């Protein structure tokens, strides 16, 4: 299990719910005490540092003979990309291994890295997920938001279609809920610009919330800690700043799936969500009656 930085820093509800759901679906997670940041945050200032940090994580997983599962698409994208680069380019692999040798590690290229969502669809399988749903959320109409790094750059990620992604929709619909189409579904949340230009970032998030509101979505479903922060943490701020009203809860996908699997909101970290979910929960429960 690769946690990355954002999740332990401020998005623990994603981890709580994902672990619950994976456990019930029979995925065994091994904790890795020596993993470090995937490297992505430093790519803008030093590509070399990013490569070394990512390769170090991959080498640690190789030593245990395990594939990596991440919850953060940024980490998944980085580890996949570096894995592919180093597997295909011997000169680069040798160069990076020179750095890793200093800590007694070596990248060999024997394991894979996958995002949580990819593990659900490819390894657990849709049938098994559907069979685990005991409380179908058929009354709910929600919107999904994939985020960028789970899909792009296409050449390195090679998962789903970045222009028309279907996996998350399929997984949302497996819970019984309806997954709505809306304008500019694949647009970036703006999170990477926070700290450099907050105003642009918030304008991007506002546009997405407007598009989701326009189709009357009862919630937005995300699979990325950064996208989640962007919408959940900032929704109230955006409402005040731009004089908007949303009240749309932002859920991590495993929270939605967990509800459908019969788990209670308290088990799934609902109390960590900033946007009030009481109306949403009432709607979700109506279907049970």
């Amino acid at each position: 299990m690769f946690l990355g930085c954002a999740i332990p820093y401020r998005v623990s509800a994603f981890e709580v719910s994902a672990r619950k759901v994976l456990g019930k679906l029979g995925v065994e997670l091994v904790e890795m005490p020596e993993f470090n940041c995937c490297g992505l945050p430093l790519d803008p200032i030093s590509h070399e540092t990013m490569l070394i940090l990512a390769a170090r994580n991959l080498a640690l997983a190789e030593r245990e003979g395990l594939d990596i599962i991440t919850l953060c698409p940024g980490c998944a994208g980085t580890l996949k990309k570096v894995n592919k680069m180093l597997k295909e380019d011997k000169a680069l692999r040798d160069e990076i291994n020179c750095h890793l040798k200093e800590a007694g590690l070596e990248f060999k290229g024997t394991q894979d890295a996958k995002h949580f969502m990819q593990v659900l669809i490819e390894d657990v399988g849709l049938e098994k997920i559907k069979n685990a749903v005991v409380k179908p959320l058929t009354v709910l109409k929600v919107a999904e938001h994939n985020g960028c790094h789970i899909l792009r750059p296409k050449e390195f990620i090679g998962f789903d279609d970045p222009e028309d992604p279907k996996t998350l929709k399929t997984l949302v619909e497996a819970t019984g809920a309806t997954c709505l189409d809306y304008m500019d579904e694949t647009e970036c949340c703006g999170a990477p610009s926070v700290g450099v230009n907050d105003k642009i970032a918030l304008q991007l998030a506002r546009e997405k919330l407007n598009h989701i509101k326009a189709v009357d979505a009862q919630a937005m479903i995300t699979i990325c800690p950064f996208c989640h922060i962007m919408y959940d943490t900032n929704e109230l701020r955006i409402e005040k700043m731009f004089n908007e009203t949303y009240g749309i809860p932002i859920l991590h996908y495993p929270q939605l799936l967990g509800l459908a699997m019969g788990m209670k909101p308290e088990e799934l970290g609902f109390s960590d969500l900033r946007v009030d979910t009481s109306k949403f929960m009432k709607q979700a429960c109506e279907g049970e009656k």
Partner: protein
Amino acid sequence: MAETAQKTIKSSEIDTKFKYEISKMRGGEKLMRCFQCGTCTSDCPIAKFSDTYRPRQIIRMTQLGLKDRVLKSDTLWLCASCFTCTDRCPQDVEVASVIRVLRNLAAEQGHIPQVFKEECASILESGYAYRIPELRIKKRETSGLPPLPKGNPESIRKTLKEVHLLKHMEKKGE
């Protein structure tokens, strides 16, 4: 960048070798293929809300050799690395990667936004990009989560000790 780009270009500020320098770096190889169609800018989520950030312009200025203007520009740091431009470029230019190459060069020259300096220091110290508060670490237990991996910052520092930029930053006390 829109403003700086409109200034008269003097031949003295053109570095004719710059485009070759970029083309040799990983991610910058296809810079010269750009024929300025503008797909990158029109599809860029940041350009939609910024008056100054235009990826097409950054690419053109790089091709022209306006090295200083590009590397000293604040707008270079606005890219969200969403890779939409890279995936949609009809000429296969890895636009976002060219921008990353330019940022790396700007960083070598000492232009590093504060947020990256902080993340860098945190990774070297703890292995994590952010300083995770004690309260969060304690809360993991009550939430039923396994303890946060302690990481091995010493091992991380060993693997990174020969990285040119980090050595440079350390010398400057950053």
